[in-house]
C-alpha cells in the first residue's frame, strides 16, 4: 500500500464537518424563506464558515 500523505484523514474529517455545517445553515435558511431574520442569520453563518475556508489556513484547522 502507498504511504498516505500527512493529515489526509484529519483534513477529510474537518472538511466533512464544514460541509455539513454549511448545508445545515443553507437548509435552515431555505426552509424559512419567508422569514427575513432566519434567512439573514443563515447567510451570516454561511459567510463565517466560508471566510475561514477561503483563508485556507489548514494547519490552524487541524491543530
Amino acid at each position: 500500500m502507498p504511504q498516505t500523505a500527512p493529515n489526509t484523514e484529519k483534513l477529510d474529517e474537518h472538511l466533512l464537518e464544514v460541509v455539513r455545517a454549511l448545508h445545515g445553515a443553507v437548509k435552515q435558511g431555505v426552509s424559512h424563506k419567508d422569514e427575513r431574520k432566519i434567512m439573514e442569520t443563515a447567510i451570516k453563518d454561511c459567510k463565517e464558515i466560508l471566510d475561514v475556508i477561503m483563508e485556507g489556513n489548514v494547519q490552524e484547522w487541524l491543530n
Partner: protein
Amino acid sequence: MFTDKIELKDFDKMDPEYKELLGHVLTIQADCEIGGPHLYVETMLPAAPTKLDQLIVARTAAEEIDHFRKIARVAGDIGVDVSFVLSQPNQQRFVDTFRGLITTWEDNAVFGFLIDRVGRYQLEEFYDCSYLPLQRILPDIVTEELGHIEYGYNKTLELVQSGDEEKAKAQKVVDYWYVRALDMFGHTGSKRSERYRYWGLKRRSNEQARQDYMNEVGPILTQMGLKIPDPNQGRRYL
C-alpha cells in the same frame, strides 16, 4: 493501451509514469474544485440579488468544497498532498480561468452555465477510468455539477429574457467566458493527454472533448437567442 483496473492496494506496483500522471491530474482537479469558490464567494455571497440566491451561492460553494475533499482524499491515499491549493492565491491556479475574480451577477450566472459545464466534461473523462477509487467518487460529484450548470443556465436565461439591454450584457459575458471554457480543454495534439489515454485515465483527446463541448453548447446558446461566439478569437490554447 492499458486496460486493467487499479485499486489503491495495486498502486505501488504501477509504472512511475502512471503514478505521476494520476497525482498530477488529481492535483489539478482539486485546484479547480476549490478555485471556483475562490472566484465568487467573497464577491457574490453578499451581492446576489435575493437572499435565496445568496444561500444558493453558499450551497454551491459547499458542494465544491466537498468535491475538493473527495479528490483530496483519493490523492492523499496515494501520498499526494493537495492541501496547498486551499491557500493558493487565485493568480497561481493551474487553470487560467480561475485566476481572476467574479465581480458581477451576470458573470456568476454564465460561469455556472459555461464553466461548470467544462467541469462536468473534465469529470466525465474519468468515467470507466483505470483507477477505481477515482471512478467511485464521480457519480455524486457529477450530479451536483449538473445542478450548478442548470442554475447557471436558468439565471443566464432570466437575463436574456429581461430585455434588450440585459440580453446584450449576457451576450458580452458569454463571449468572455466561452473562449475561456474552450481553452480549459488544453492544447490540441497534447502529448500528455495522449499518455493519459494510454493509461486509461482519460477517454478523449483535448480536441475531441472540446469539440463535444462546442457541439453541446452551440445549440443551447442559439435556442436562448444568443450568438455563438467566435471559437478562435482570444484563445490561448489552440
